[in-house]
């Protein structure tokens, strides 16, 4: 029940903002609701498994593991927006416009929480679609006409992606119907319905569902919406897209892998590894070419999505590493995108060639960019290092040596490409004509918390979290 409260809190907050007088308190309501949601999600991590809403929702290890991750990040972004409400691009404009945007952010958070709790693939699809509809207008910046096009491309690709998923679900339903069974898309009923050997409908359905979800995650070949949307959106919204919605879509993929791996493991594995490698190739080439900081981080997100897809495509050994990597990836993206906003505001550009000496010019942001980039590149002691290492070990253990070799080459190239663009921004010569920037500790607090979580996950995974990860990993292994 505590998880249901967490999922409903943003919707109640939305009603409060929509009520008369809500516009004045919109930011405060957003922060209070996000804090309540995060608190409930953390408290619910130890709650027992339960089925809710007539079986359409349920609490299990996966929702208990990921709810605190996305809700803590949602809270951090809410605090970030609150501290920057006066000038942040996400919230400029008239009070009515600000109110609309806060309502959309709350709808987005509520929908992503419902994805986590979904026990029916159709309910998860609906919640993901609602989160997309809420996010699309948030990408638009008043000061950037190109952001409208980026926003439209995001909606267009997402609609097509979710359309493919819907066709895939229809194929699965037909497969069950053809076997003479009563069709259902409930996660707890599907394994029983799919016990027989897979037919053409099921294989087609699995292929389309994975392709659609891969597109929603920003994996190649249909990833071109992601760099545009991440670059053009206000950075706080980019953090929500990259850290919160990415994980919501990933959870749908985890559920799909769990349900369909027993009968369609080879198809799932082959498709995921292929899409993952394609994404790594495409993003590495773009990482080498780009000098725009936010676009670079967007391509790094595609790269990381590829790593996760490859890990998920492997059978047994990589599940723990994938989960650790996905969790750390969420915090890394949140840190880096929120930092990118501060840097852009200070320097007036996102071009890495025009930015230098951040460690002196913007000490907090310089440190966050530096440490975040180390985590992004998968250096120890961060959990991304451990996750990547486990995925690499799994590649060797699965005798996927060609994939292993390609993975190593691509990850090295992306390492060099990212480092050569970002490191001069941190340690280069700072402009001498600028007065030191004023940086509030409260604005830095969310990023500091994210950083602490990253380090804790990398050095020592606390026993309760470790148990949850192991439990989710077991479901992914089909055990």
């Amino acid at each position, binding site marked *: 029940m505590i998880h249901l409260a967490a999922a409903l809190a943003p919707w109640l907050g939305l009603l409060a903002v929509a009520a008369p007088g809500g516009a004045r308190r919109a930011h405060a309501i957003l922060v209070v609701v996000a804090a309540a949601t995060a608190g409930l999600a953390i408290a619910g991590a130890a709650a027992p498994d339960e089925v809710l809403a007539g079986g359409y929702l349920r609490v299990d290890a996966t929702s208990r593991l990921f709810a605190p991750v996305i809700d803590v990040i949602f809270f951090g972004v809410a605090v970030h927006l609150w501290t920057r409400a006066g000038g942040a691009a996400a919230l400029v404009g008239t009070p009515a416009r600000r109110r609309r945007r806060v309502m959309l952010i709350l709808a987005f958070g509520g929908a992503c929480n419902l994805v986590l709790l979904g026990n029916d693939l159709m309910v998860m699809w*609906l919640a993901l679609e609602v989160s997309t509809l809420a996010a699309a207008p948030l990408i638009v910046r008043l000061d950037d006409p190109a952001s409208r096009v980026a926003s439209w491309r995001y909606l267009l690709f997402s609609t097509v992606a979710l359309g493919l998923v819907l066709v895939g679900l229809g194929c699965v339903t037909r497969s069950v119907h053809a076997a003479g069974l009563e069709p259902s898309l409930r996660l707890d009923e599907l394994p029983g319905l799919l016990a027989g050997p897979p037919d053409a409908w099921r294989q087609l359905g699995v292929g389309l569902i994975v392709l659609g979800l891969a597109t929603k995650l920003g994996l190649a070949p249909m990833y071109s919406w992601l760099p545009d949307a991440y670059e053009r959106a206000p950075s706080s919204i980019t953090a929500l897209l990259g850290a919160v919605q990415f994980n919501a879509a990933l959870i749908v993929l985890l559920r799909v892998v769990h349900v369909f791996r027993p009968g369609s493991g080879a198809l799932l594995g082959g498709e995921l590894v292929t899409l993952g490698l394609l994404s790594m190739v495409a993003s590495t080439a773009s990482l080498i070419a780009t000098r725009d900081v936010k676009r670079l981080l967007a391509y790094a997100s595609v790269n990381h999505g590829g790593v996760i897809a490859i890990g998920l495509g492997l059978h047994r050994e990589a599940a723990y590493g994938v989960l650790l990597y996905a969790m750390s990836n969420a915090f890394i993206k949140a840190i880096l995108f929120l930092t990118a906003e501060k840097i852009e505001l200070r320097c007036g550009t996102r071009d890495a060639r025009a930015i230098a000496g951040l460690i002196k010019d913007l000490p907090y942001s310089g440190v966050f960019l530096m440490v975040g980039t180390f985590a992004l590149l998968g250096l120890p002691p961060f959990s991304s290092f451990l996750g990547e290492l486990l995925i690499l070990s799994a590649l060797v253990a699965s005798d996927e040596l060609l994939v292993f070799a390609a993975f190593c080459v691509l990850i090295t190239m992306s390492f060099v490409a990212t480092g050569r663009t970002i490191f001069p921004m941190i340690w280069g010569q700072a402009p001498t004509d600028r007065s030191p920037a004023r940086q509030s500790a409260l604005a830095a607090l969310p990023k500091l918390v994210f950083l602490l979580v990253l380090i804790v996950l990398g050095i020592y995974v606390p026993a309760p979290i470790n148990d949850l990860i192991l439990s989710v990993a077991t479901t992914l292994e089909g055990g």
Partner: protein
Amino acid sequence: MSALLVALTAVMLLPLFLGSWRVSLVGLAAQGALLAAIGYRLHPDTAAPATWVLLVDLAVVRGLIAPLALRPVAVVTRQARHDIIPPNLLSWTLAVGMVLVAFRFADVVEPVAGDARMMVGVAATGVLLGLLVLSTQNGPLGQMIGVLRLENGIALFELGSGAEPAIGVHVAQLVVFVATLVLFRWYLHTLPVDAAAAAAPGEEAA
């Protein structure tokens, strides 16, 4: 049923060859009406609320609201022609080829001849032609027409799947579809006619 499906295939295919936004929107309306007629044939129980939700979805939302939502913006653009696929032999061949591929696909996955197989063929035609329109359009209006064609193909596919979604889920789907149409209208008012040319979103910040 077969006559309805043949008619639906015709209204999916013919507007591609006529470079007019009016014909495209009328085609969408006709698709909605035919889908509603097929839906009524499959679920004739008018005492069931689920039937009414289905008919409102297909006839009212897809057949009326969707084309009407796009119409005022299409009028404002005042383009004499609005081809939703390039008007050349290659595109036309691709479109006809996709119809053939869709029906061949139906032969493979539905071994028994009949309405079920034909529904799969027509639904696959709708999905493939929707993707063809999407892949050849730069402007938002054409892309939206592509998305709506794709959605109509998916709706027919769901109709023939043999499973009836819970009424709550269907209503939620309908609400999401209407919200998508509202967003489409907003984008049509705010986006340039040729979004791809106006955006150049890939250019570097420098």
